[in-house]
């Protein structure tokens, strides 16, 4: 079955030299775009979350400051965690749809249907 031109669903990648693919500029570009987004954003939200935790843990007076009505700084910062979580989620999805998915599927299509890449090359 390895020689059939049409790959079966259970054996879609018979003989791919992954090291070669990994070394291509196209893949390296995708890898860089992925990491340059997810690493900084992950570090940023973790720092922001632990800043909030430390304030709630050790800065009781600051967090208890009333802003309007009975709503205090602590409640607003807590709700701020919800806002940033929703915002980062939306931001990542839009980034992945625009910048990551097209490149990823181009590479995937080329690897799973080698005939296309030969026509392209």
């Amino acid at each position, binding site marked *: 079955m390895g020689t059939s031109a049409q790959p079966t669903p259970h054996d*879609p990648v018979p003989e791919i030299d992954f*090291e070669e693919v990994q070394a291509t500029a196209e893949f390296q570009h*995708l890898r860089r775009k992925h990491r340059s987004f997810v690493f900084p954003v992950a570090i940023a939200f973790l720092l922001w979350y632990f800043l909030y*935790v430390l304030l709630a843990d050790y800065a009781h007076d600051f*967090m208890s400051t009333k802003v309007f009505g*009975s709503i*205090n700084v602590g409640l607003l910062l*807590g709700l701020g*965690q919800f806002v940033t*979580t929703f915002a980062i989620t939306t931001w990542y999805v839009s980034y992945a749809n625009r910048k990551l998915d097209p490149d990823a599927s181009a590479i995937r299509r080329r690897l799973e249907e080698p005939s296309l890449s030969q026509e392209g090359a």
Partner: protein
Amino acid sequence: MGAYMSLPAAVPAALATQMKDTTWINILIFSAFVAITLVVVFRASRNNKTAADYYAAGRSFSGGQNGTAIAGDYLSAASFLGITGAIAVNGYDGFLYSIGFLVAWLVALLLVAELLRNTGKFTMADVLSFRLKQRPVRIAAATTTLMVCFFYLLAQMAGAGGLVSLLLGLDSKDTLGQAVVITVVGGLMILYVLIGGMKGTTWVQIIKAALLIVGAAAMTIIVLAMHGFNLSTLLDAAVAKAGDGGAALLNPGKQYGATGTSKLDFISLALALVLGTAALPHVLMRFYTVPTAKEARKSVVWAIWLIGVFYLFTLVLGYGAGALIGAKEILAAPGGVNAAAPLLAFVIGGPVLLGFISAVAFATILAVVAGLTITAAASFAHDIYANVIAKDKSNPQMEVKVARRTVVVIGVVAIGGGILANGQNVAFLVALAFAVAASANLPTILYSLFWKRFTTQGALWSMYGGLAVAIILIAFSPVVSGSPKAMIPGASFAWFPLANPGLVSIPVAFFLGWLGTMLDKSTEDPAKQAEMEVRSLTGVGAEKATNH
């Protein structure tokens, strides 16, 4: 969550007595839930043919369905009843606690979900052993999976007795009645998972999540309407009801701020929550039930919105219970803090809303234990049996047969463990499950996805080291001995001051993964690393959905 088990000696408050008169409504609504879900599970099971059907629901769920199921799997009774009660009694600190459970999902979204979907088949161990030495890494990953599932399952089952007794109006000292309840919960769980596999489990979780979120939304709207849709007015009402010192409800520190140790303890808990969620095996396994990485991403997005909105509801419900019932009456009711949400439902919506919310709470326990059981069974059958014990002799049919037998064994052990642990203070087990996931699983998941040099020795040191440190520290912590609220209150062998080991065990596990790799003389196959990296980012060769 803290008083999950500590049912106070029966001092039924007035409200609790009134609630008892209408428990037949609770039982009726709950029976309807069981009947409907059983029909759905039977129908869903008709297409269960292959291993991919049984473990991964044929990878046929959409991102929206799976995201809803994730919310159903993740929002346990501790989340709904525990957090509502914690806010009602301890105010701001209950809200603070809930936030960790939400923010944690960004780790899953950004770093784990899609890459895992692209490189694995059924279990977490598939990913961890992808480019390392199969046998040792698979055994280690299956060990940590089974440990996390066991801790979580035991906490749920032990809690189920007291919780359901509260909802059915059983006496809190009626241990025989509670044992019957635990057996019924375990029996239903075995039935769902045995028949329905992942597909049935997923539908139970979807139905439960929908009921939970609709129920919580309805209560939130009623509570807000009673306070002029003004959060500040609601907060004032909670403060007024609490009487002297009520203003403390709005400020941090009531629960975690007592001493330097309790403050440090919360940091440890926050670390375990935020890093543990994306490494919980039953959460990870859900990502295999969708056809592509893109649907896995959509699942997390749905889960984040549903879970986030739900915790916003609990903020209103918690202060609502504080305002309309008050901490004193909540703590005096059977079930303690867990009684806040049912009491609130009774006060604002009468016996019918109470029945609905009670049935939802019961459904919550069922959906969570079913998800844990199928994860543990899949890990044993796929990782231990098929890849270690039987090796080449195994075939998918046999593997599923082993998984089904494992479900029965786990169910029986969970019922027995739940009955034995009933009445003991084992609430710490949930936090321990998160700490073990964050220590034993997350470092290896991240290193094997993102660090080229990572080796088998690093993985083994990190997984076994993280697991051992977490369990040893908890064994010598105040939750097991040396305090009146401990599991073994009579003994005193605690020397570790914190109730959650995460602050120490997580950094240690990351360090051991690095050290084990640096000291490893052998290196891993670079071709395998290349394959994993290319597949994780592009989805080449990822498992496809099965067609029926």
